[in-house]
């Protein structure tokens, strides 16, 4: 493996320390943040073909 991915991955893990009781690797924190972003996107982005309002809300009863 070579290139920027190799430079990024083939090194010892970097850790973030919160106070003295919690530490987490940058890569694990990134995965958690990505999952949270996907979760938020799944809630917020409209599904194709979904009806956003019922007929009564649009006034065409």
């Amino acid at each position, binding site marked *: 493996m070579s290139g920027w991915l190799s430079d990024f991955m083939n090194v010892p893990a970097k850790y973030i320390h919160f106070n003295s009781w919690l530490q987490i690797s940058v890569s694990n924190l990134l995965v958690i943040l990505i999952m949270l972003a996907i979760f938020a996107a799944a*809630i917020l982005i409209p599904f194709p073909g979904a009806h956003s309002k019922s007929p009564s809300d649009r006034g065409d009863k």
Partner: protein
Amino acid sequence: MITETQTPEDSKMWTARLRNSWQRNLPIDKLLPDTQPAYVASWIYVFGVLTLVAFVDILISGLILAFAGPAWYHTSSLGLFVNSLHFWGVQLFFVFMVVHLWGKFWMAAWRGRRTATWITGMVAFLASIGTAFTGYLIQTNFDAQWIAFEAKDGFNAVGVGAFFTPTNIGQIMLIHVALLPLVLGVITVMHVLMVRKRGVVPPIDALPGNEAL
């Protein structure tokens, strides 16, 4: 055995009882529906089936890896590619499953007599963690060796070292390739059948009569 005066529904044979019970609880239109309630048209409902797709990728790539062996998947280009398909399939499997879990947790998906569906999902999650762990142990590289020796101390510390030996590659290979995928597969089938039986859980504020797409 059915006599001339009995209908197939009257038969006391276990096959007839099982068939009648299946038809009562999970008729074919529930098992293979072609419509879903309107509230299912949301991206958050997609992550269960995405988890299944990743699971199929893991099963197929894992089967190829098991047949060809480490001498192939550590050295050849195609072997490394299939190995990567397996590894990244697992990463996506867990990401999809965690988002699925969050979505179902926040919509309280155990409502409406769906407790068993929720519990089988939880058990599948735990079985997946065990499967992933044993997968890391049979990479046949220094990483696997390091994890196995750390895990050995952990297992000994909690008193189960006599039963689980992470350094025993034969035991771990059996658990990873046969036992846990079988357990996970059976639980997943049960989970999906329960979803089919009860239907997809509605949002907490879903209005009655909003079932049609």
